[in-house]
């Protein structure tokens, strides 16, 4: 029995194929995991980007607060978060964080004074890059 064990330990040609196969398996599994994760991430991002739909139910040039209040409704298939608001391409502050779940709706209050009769290009950008933009004329 001792002789057999000694012969096995001394036979280096037997160990090499085992190690190589084991390494190959590990590398293959790792590569597939990375590929699968990347696939999931890529498809999830793509899917969420495609699923964002937000409408403006109402836009109110509020004379009492001198703000521009936008009532947004999330009609898409994913929750949204507003990252930036631009009026006439100038970034504005708003009641951040502003987050809407699916079918949720609420006022987005933009702290920007306005002048009656002026035209404003209001662009609301979500964290995924969706723009909800249009021209509005102050009453």
């Amino acid at each position, binding site marked *: 029995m001792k002789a057999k064990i000694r012969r096995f330990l001394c036979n280096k040609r037997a160990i090499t194929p085992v190690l190589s196969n084991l390494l190959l398996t590990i590398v293959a599994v790792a590569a*597939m995991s990375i*590929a*699968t994760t990347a*696939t999931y991430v*890529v*498809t999830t991002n*793509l*899917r969420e980007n*495609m*699923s964002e*739909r937000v*409408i403006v*139910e*109402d836009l*109110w040039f509020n*004379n*009492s607060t001198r703000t521009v*209040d936008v*009532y947004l*409704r999330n*009609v898409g*298939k994913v929750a949204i978060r507003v990252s930036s608001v631009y009026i006439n391409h100038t970034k504005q502050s708003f009641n951040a964080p502003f987050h809407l779940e699916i*079918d949720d*709706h609420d006022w987005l209050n933009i702290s920007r004074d306005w002048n009656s009769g002026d035209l404003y290009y209001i662009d609301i950008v979500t964290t995924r890059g969706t723009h909800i933009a249009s021209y509005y004329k102050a*009453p």
Partner: protein
Amino acid sequence: MQAIIKRLKCDKRGVSNVIVVMLSLVLIVIIVGNVILWSYQMNQLDLERMQEAVTVSDVSRVTSSPWFTAGNEYIVNVGTRLNGTYVDTQAVDSNPETFREEITSTNYVFNPSGYLLGGSTKYISGAVSDLNTDNSVYMVFRSYPSATSATTLYAHQEQTIVGGRVSYFLNLSSADASGTTLSADAQNEGRLFMGRFVYQLTGVQSIPASTWTVYYRAQKTSSFITAHCDIDILIRTSAGAVRSTIATDVAGSADLSTSWSTLSGTYSWANYAVVDQTDYLEIIFYMHVTAKKNNEFVRLRIDDNTLAVTDQTRIAGVILPSSYTVQIELTGSSNIQNWQSLTWTVNSAFTTAIVNTTLQLYNFYTSQYPTNGDGYIAYTSNPTPNTDETINQTIVANPTYYRNSTGAWKIRITGVKDTTSPFDLKLDWVEFKATETGIYRLNITNSYTLDLQIYPIVYTRSIEILLRYNVSNSDEKWFLRAYNWTAAGFSDVGFNSTGGNQPTLGQWNEYAISITNNLKDYIAENGTILIEFFDEGTGANQTLVEVDFLGVRAIIDGTRIDLKNSSPLTVRVVAIWVINSTNHQRYDANFFMNSGEEATYIRADVSLPKDDYIARIVTERGNIAVFAES
């Protein structure tokens, strides 16, 4: 082929390449498939949104709901349904349902609403409302002493504790025991205490002036002793304090003899007004020794029923109540209908037995309480105390004599008993019931169900009830009432008018009233309103009543939106906006329209501004339809 397969099997790099390519293809398929699938779904969403076409054709103010009419046949409580059905009352079309009055007897039941105490009767407990039902919930009154007489207080051997002091009783009854001898050693001269005797002054308002004679059953054991009896008199509170010292060392007797003898002394009692009826009259008996003798005694004998009453130790000539009276006058209201009979009932009990009781119903025609006949009942109460007795009398001759011009009535209850202690009158139920016969009546009811989904109570300003009817006699008014679910009865409290409607003969009469207050009391949770239609109850002629229309509606300040869905899709409206120069108001909505449908959406909670406004509806898919009013 075999060669190719063999070569492939031997070429391990070829297998690996195939596997890698296959896996890559799988990943690419997953990525592309996922993206395409989601893209398809979102495109579908966008397509549907583009296809959706909703227009608002009109937005207007709504001030009332449609009429809600009877959904079932009328319940005829009094009267008869002649012809027609409830369907005939659903529209104003001069095609009525007809009812007829029938002759009835009507009972009007009244209970007291107030009371007056007679004499010195004292109110103890209870409320007048306790007299409405025979339920052993009483209104209690206490009698007062109405007559007095000279009485004798006998010294008894039974004891009580008054303010920590042991005292014997003074009772109105004579000795009832084998007797006790109170002794004192005559070794010292002076007043020797023999015993303290008390009588509680419950029900006694005063002890009038009189001459008391105090009798002493006494003896001395030696002829060397010289002694006589006398007393102290005081009023002691139940706590033991002396409220008033009346007299000291009075009612002295003649000298004692060595044999038992009954001696006496007198005292001139002045009037005493009792301060508190829990107080005690206290008599302290003394032996006043003026010549002493060691180991010899003076004695007082009490509560010995072997002695003749005239020989017993006692105090005679004390004037105490001998009769008590309770008197109460109950007042109430009724109506001024033409009664044919009147039954008045008193259910009461006394805390003592056999009270001479008189019940009297005031006769406003003769302006006095009767002393016999109608309106007068005299009886002796039950021998068992606290036994409820129901006494009533029915008056058929001139029952209206027993009310005044406004319908007020009054009953006097008097209880008298010759007794030395007060008692209570316990009134349980008093009823004044008038009966009117020979009157033609009609009373019908039905239920009407408001659509609370569209017209919630909270946005309903009032409920309007409209009746269109015709009568064959116009000699009485007609009334509408609604069922008050809280009070569990028909009522017109909270109505804008409660005076009824006087119809005009030979034409359709419209009678409209509104429930303006307490709406929630009149509308059940499911929107049901019960309406009662009835006559005044004064008609001596039989009347036919034709009901052409009877309905209810909610008065609101709401909004009506006329919508049209021109798209091939079902549309759900999720929001309504009403916008004017000063406010942008959003209302949540949940309204569905089928494809091609024209629909009217009524909102009782949406009030339109009086100035220019824009109304906007938002669909679930994100489309917006606008209506501008200027």
